[in-house]
């Protein structure tokens, strides 16, 4: 089995590229937190007023906002919501009602005032709260705590608790263009856009950024995460800002985008999950949310228009690869429910602090590893960049990203154009995800088993297939092995062509790789997606879960090789 374990990471820990925390852009931002919130407020107001030039339109939007907010408070209240939520919004409602009694001029003024109140509140809600001391503390907690847990539980002797035999670096593999990202972070602003599968992503990526020697990033984390106190603590101290997906009103969305836009312009390295929410189906994201992504493009254009030497914005796609995703059973259930009946379901998290700790314990007591693939740097148009940050065309010729914003020889603001650029960038990121995605043996065995069953019942649609009794499903091991070898070969070839990546444990004897995959796929779940029965054949205890894990391999046209 040893051969199959991931090779030990030989890389030494990376040195921080900026020694002192006070030099970090994120620190600068939070030191001047109030000024920054005011700046965001002012800019967002200008933007909203440009989008709603007539008072009537603006008031319509404000009324819609109040209506939705009060609805949200009534129906879907979270622990992370401010205490005075209902008071604030009923106050706004009254002010809006009073507008009717005012003269044109007064009403104009009052409407702008209301807008400012709302936007300022949103900006304060969104703003992160990075503190130097708690960052250091949280960082050492993560490092120390996880490390001890890891060593203690793996060696199973009490004394081992304080030895450093295994480190987090062995557990979590970071592969890909680390050096390049370090260089780019020195010259410009990095916007990291990872895939999103688990609530663990947010903490994991914080640690990854730190261990690559990069200064803390600001990141857009779903407000739902802040409901869980232990995570809220880490998130706050790691520089997260809050994204509330329940709020879909214009003032909120514009404020959020302005926050990200201005932070990027100020050189704060940023991170958000462009899929918007965790992938419910287990698929690698195909459709990205364009809102926050557009802020990278807008910030870049603003930087070109500003005086002085323009800073460049670099987009870095990242994929996170797990053998097991804690929330998989609930997520796939939700996904199938929605897909099957086309009904909305409210987003909830079923884990409190205790559930989280239990999960973390399981996670660290199990030899299952995680890998993080860092993609190559892109400019905001999705062109690859070299180590100096120059954008390259397909032939390797250096091109100037500034030229994309030029019309008739001059830099210009054209929102429609930038919307289109955002769409193009999102497509590029999705392509990069598929290229840097690191196939685990567990993903592959899940894919092959599910596809083989699908092929056995060609007339059944997905839902009928999933309803088959699990006892009826059994795959002959030899048959399975043949298919595994065949598909693995295709994956080898695809890697050579740069279309995909795979973990080292996938190589070697196919019996061992299959065993590794079956042992690891969905390893923490009560019902395992795949197990071997006494005859040595492959069976499943939960077909829906298997479907979740196999989805990871969808999008490569591998189905034809089953």
């Amino acid at each position, binding site marked *: 089995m040893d051969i199959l374990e991931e090779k030990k990471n030989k890389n030494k820990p990376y040195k921080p590229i900026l020694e002192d925390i006070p030099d970090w852009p994120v620190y600068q931002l939070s030191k001047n937190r109030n000024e920054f919130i005011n700046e965001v407020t002012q800019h967002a107001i200008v933007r909203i007023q440009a989008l709603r030039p007539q008072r009537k339109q603006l008031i319509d939007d404000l009324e819609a906002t109040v209506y939705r907010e009060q609805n949200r408070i009534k129906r879907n209240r979270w622990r992370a919501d401010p205490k005075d939520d209902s008071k604030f919004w009923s106050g706004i409602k009254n002010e809006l009602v009073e507008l009717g009694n005012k003269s044109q001029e007064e009403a104009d003024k009052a409407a702008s005032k209301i807008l400012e109140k709302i936007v300022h509140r949103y900006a304060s809600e969104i703003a992160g709260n990075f503190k130097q001391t708690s960052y250091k503390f949280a960082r050492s907690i993560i490092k120390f705590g996880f490390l001890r847990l890891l060593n203690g539980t793996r060696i199973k002797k009490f004394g081992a608790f304080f030895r450093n035999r295994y480190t987090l670096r062995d557990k979590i593999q970071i592969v890909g263009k680390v050096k390049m990202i370090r260089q780019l972070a020195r010259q410009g602003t990095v916007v990291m856009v990872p895939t999103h599968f688990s609530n663990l992503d947010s903490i994991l990526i914080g640690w990854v950024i730190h261990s690559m020697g990069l200064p803390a990033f600001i990141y857009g984390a779903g407000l739902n995460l802040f409901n869980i106190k232990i995570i809220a603590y880490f998130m706050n101290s790691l520089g997260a800002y809050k994204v509330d997906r329940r709020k879909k009103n214009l003032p909120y969305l514009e404020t959020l985008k302005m926050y990200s836009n201005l932070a990027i312009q100020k050189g704060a390295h940023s991170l958000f999950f462009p899929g918007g929410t965790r992938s419910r189906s287990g698929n690698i994201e195909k459709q990205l949310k364009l809102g926050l992504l557009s802020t990278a493009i807008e910030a870049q254009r603003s930087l070109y228009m500003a005086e002085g030497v323009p800073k460049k914005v670099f987009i870095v796609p990242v994929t996170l690869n797990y053998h097991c995703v804690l929330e998989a059973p609930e997520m796939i259930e939700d996904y199938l429910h929605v897909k099957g009946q086309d009904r909305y379901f409210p987003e909830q998290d079923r884990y409190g602090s205790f559930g989280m700790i239990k999960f973390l314990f399981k996670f660290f007591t199990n030899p299952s590893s995680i890998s993080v693939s860092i993609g190559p740097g892109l400019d905001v*148009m999705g062109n690859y960049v070299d180590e100096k940050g120059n954008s390259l065309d397909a032939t390797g010729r250096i*091109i*100037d990203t500034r*030229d994309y914003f030029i*019309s*008739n*020889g001059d830099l*210009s603001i*054209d929102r429609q154009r930038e919307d289109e*650029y955002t769409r193009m960038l999102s497509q590029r990121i999705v392509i990069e995800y598929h290229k840097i995605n690191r196939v685990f043996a567990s993903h592959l065995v899940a894919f092959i088993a599910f596809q083989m069953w699908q092929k056995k019942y060609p007339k059944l649609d997905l839902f009928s297939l999933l309803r088959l009794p699990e006892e009826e499903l059994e795959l002959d091991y030899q048959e399975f092995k043949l298919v595994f070898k065949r598909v693995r070969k295709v994956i080898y070839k695809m890697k050579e062509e740069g279309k995909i990546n795979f973990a080292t444990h996938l190589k070697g004897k196919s019996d061992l790789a299959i065993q590794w995959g079956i042992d690891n796929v969905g390893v923490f779940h009560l019902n395992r997606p795949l197990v071997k029965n006494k005859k040595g054949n492959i069976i499943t205890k939960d077909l829906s879960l298997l479907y979740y894990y196999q989805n990871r391999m969808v999008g490569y046209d591998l189905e034809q090789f089953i």
Partner: protein
Amino acid sequence: MTLSSSSDKPVGVIGAGNFGTVIANILAINRPVLLYARNQHTVKHINQKRENRKHEIHSNITATHDLAQVARECDVIFPMVPSEHFRAMMKVLAIHLQPYHILIHGTKGFDVTVPSGESINSIAKLDRHMVKTMSEVIREESVVVRIGCLAGPNLSKELAQRQPAATVIASHFDEVILIGKRLLRNDRFQVYENRDIVGVEIAGVLKNIIAIAAGALSGLGYGENAKGLLVSRGAVEMIYLGRALGGDVKAFLGVAGIGDLVTTCNSPLSRNFTVGYRLAKGEKLQHILNDMSEIAEGINTVRIAKKCADHYKVRALITDRLYKVLFEGMTVESALEFLMRFPLSADIDFI
């Protein structure tokens, strides 16, 4: 957004064929034009004799043989090159292009890349990964992203006589549409806009198939009933094929779809129509091709569309029969007989 800052900058046109020359003449009404011709002799001829392919050349036009010069001096370039040379031209031009360039093409054809060892004749089926529109070729070969396409009922001869006509400019970018409109519009030339560039491109290409069929009907001596049948059923077939290839139905109902279709089917002037006409008169394809000075895009389109229809399992009867006539020696009469006997029911089922 004003054009004043660079209104003295010339507009580029690549390709001095019939359509390229006519478009250059229209552009020259508003702006200086740099017209690229592949053939050095043509360049000389245009610059000295002020004439090309029997079109008089506007005094604002300068011909050149230097693609680098076109890229250097022009921000906006109109490639008007036959589809079979388009990719090769782009490969040469691409080295000189920058992200600020805007390309608006007027080529109605597909680009086909088949796996090595295969040819477009030998390959049994084609899918969308192998068949590209010109805007997709531009994206693949260059850094240019602001791309537009020009399509519509634009017979070169009528445009040259300044008869009233319209075109559609399609692009994902408002900016491109706006610039295209400003450059092309005049009191005899109306310009419409469309956001579905791929749909418009596909409509413009597929109508060439029906144009050949129209020529064939005319060659057999049939009249207006037959033509009405062909145009309406042809439009339906275009929509089926177009949807399989990623276009939206709407594009097919506009100037670039129905508009262009009606024109080409009624126009003995068009090359595609001529091919069909002469086939119906019993001439062999090779013989017809030998005395045409420019490429009839429709012939290649039939080949490509037939193989795509097979791959995507689209029922495209007219295309399929034309394929047999063009490449498998079926007579026009028996193709028509087959179509008239085929049991069909629903008139319209795509809206």
